[in-house]
């Protein structure tokens, strides 16, 4: 799925993202993270721009981009739900919550819902293990989850759909 904006628009967006959002020195990874944070995904064009900025090849940039699970390569969904599948959460019932989410969102594994509205993602640790099971909705961490709580959150998201 290609973005509806035209090419020069996306180029400006990418360049602005890198200029305004770069944390520390310019590296392939830092530039990619800046683009992901700002635009929500890595457009094909960004691979080229980042390659030029780092005096390297698109191949090298793709190597980095495909290595880290932070990145996605098509436009983001409206909302994101992440559930931790780490050991603390596993012991306190994460698998059950993941199954509930997948059923509710009609997914087999992580990915976007068919209407492209919600993205479901596994997270290896959201760093709030003491509040396990833990998840996050649109990057806002929610602890002490149970099936009822997560279904409520999903339904709240669904209600915002126009």
């Amino acid at each position, binding site marked *: 799925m290609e973005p509806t904006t035209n090419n020069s628009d996306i180029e400006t967006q990418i360049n602005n993202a890198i200029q305004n959002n770069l944390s520390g020195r310019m590296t392939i990874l*830092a530039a990619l993270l800046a683009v992901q944070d700002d635009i929500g995904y890595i457009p094909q064009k960004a691979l080229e721009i980042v390659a030029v900025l780092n005096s390297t090849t698109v191949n090298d940039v793709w190597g980095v981009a495909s290595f880290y699970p932070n990145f996605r390569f098509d436009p983001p969904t409206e909302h994101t739900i992440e559930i931790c*599948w780490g050991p*603390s959460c596993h*012991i306190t019932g994460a698998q059950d919550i993941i199954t509930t989410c997948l059923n509710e969102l009609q997914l087999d594994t992580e990915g976007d819902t068919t209407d492209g509205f919600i993205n479901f993602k596994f997270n*290896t*640790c*959201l760093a*709030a293990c*003491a509040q396990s099971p833990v998840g996050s909705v649109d990057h806002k961490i929610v602890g002490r989850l149970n099936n009822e709580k997560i279904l409520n959150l999903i339904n709240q998201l669904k209600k915002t759909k126009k």
Partner: protein
Amino acid sequence: MQKFIDLKNVASEKYQQISNKPRVRIGTDISGVAAGSIEISNEFAKHISENNLDVTLSHVGGFGLSYAEPLIDVEMTDGSRVFYSNVNINDVKNIVQSHIINGIPLYDIAFAYTGNLTNTNNTPQFYELPENKLQKKILTQNFGEIDPTNIYEYIVKDGYSALAKALFEMEVDEVHKEILDSKLRGRGGAAFPTGVKLGFLKGSNAKEKYILCNCEEGDPGAWNDKAILESDPHRLIEGLILAAIATNASNGVIFIRHGNDIPIERTKEAIKSSYDNGLLGENILGSNFSFDAEVVLVGESYVAGEETALMEAVEGKRAMPRYKPPFPAAFGVWGHPSNINNIKTIANLTSIIAKGSEWFTSIGTETSTGTAILCLSGNINKPGLYEIEMGTTIRTVIEDICGGIPNNKELKLLQTGGPLGGVLNSSKLDTSIDFDSMAKAGAILGSGGIIVADQDVDVIDLTRMLIAFCQFESCGKCFPCRLGNSHLLEILNRICGKTSTEKDIELMRKVGTNMQQGSLCGHGQLGFNPIKSALEYFKEDFDLALDTSIGEPNVSINIPTRANRY
């Protein structure tokens, strides 16, 4: 030295402005936020402004008492403090009305108190609670007490005095010797003596030398590195400058996983205010020592916590380990001599220089000096973050500090030191928590995560989850690790699905040995640990699982797959 005295004066003036009015502290570390402390904070702000109150509302880190969160602490001008735990949004109005406006604490919902208060309705004293009293707080002494974004509060608490001491009263060799004598060992997992490690870098004559501070912290079940960054980041920055003084390093890099927004923001803010106050940059505090520090973010990758993979990630590449030699002290990040330390190690230097190595060696055991910050989670009554003296037993931590296992169940399994650490059973409860005793028991202290599981846990299923994690996080560089972990996961799936035979155990051991011998870094070398320790301590569970005549197959597990990493 004059500059530091001036800075201290400015700090105490600024602190006066906070301390002469009532103060509400709210723990907004990741764990607090997960429990809903932001909503509580907003509600407080609303009621404070509605009533035109002159009250300081401080976002502090956490006390580590995660089970009590959202934890609110109301301090009045007489210095008395009353704590309210698990605060509900409806409680806020009453707390503001009764406690702050009328000066009458709500003892019926209070959690604990400190200071001179009477008729407290049997509310316990905060620092007398077993979970506080049994701790030995060195690194965590400011947790929950100070506003991490306010450098002056850290300075008022004697912050940066170790730095002034090292700069103006000690020789470089003395600083290094103090660290050597403290017998401090690396807190990241490998437990290498820190003084010796810093010595490697000190020996290099290069002009540009790097101290890297590792807060990748991918271990599920451990959050103490991030806790330091979100509760007391200046302790780390001070320690980092001290390490630089001891080794004459020029640059510092604090390395944090992307996505941990609260620690990242607070660290960046702390670095900025250190620069603004002349504590970083050219000629620190008017001395002739200069040092720069920066934050570098890394994508989600467990292996990025390995020292050479970390350097690759700092350079913006795929986080894959390098061959050694050359060792980092000779050829590190961007080719400059480098030294990589865990955050807790670096943060310890502050107290070591301030109070001396003799004081430090008096804490802990002969070979493991100091304290350990433990992160307790899983099936336990009081999950949280507790700093204990090395040599405390696991039993003390679980039964006395954490209040045991919920619902009168029995403890079955302990998972320590991250997924690669290994599992223990209840027979190991009297193991002393120090590097050597834990290693002897077949687990590692690692970065301090302890996950507790009760009698209902399915050991094989949990082992499968741990191996799934190792498989997902393998960087793919060495094939024994890349294929080995997938193979182990396949076998464990067979065992869980009741389609396995006795031969599979032998096969797993074979694969494990190959992984250990054929992998470049700890991820592959230790990747078999979860199964090895589970086979040692939970043999009967494996026997039951292999017996196809009993039990139900447990096929389903939802785990992420990684199609395009390799």
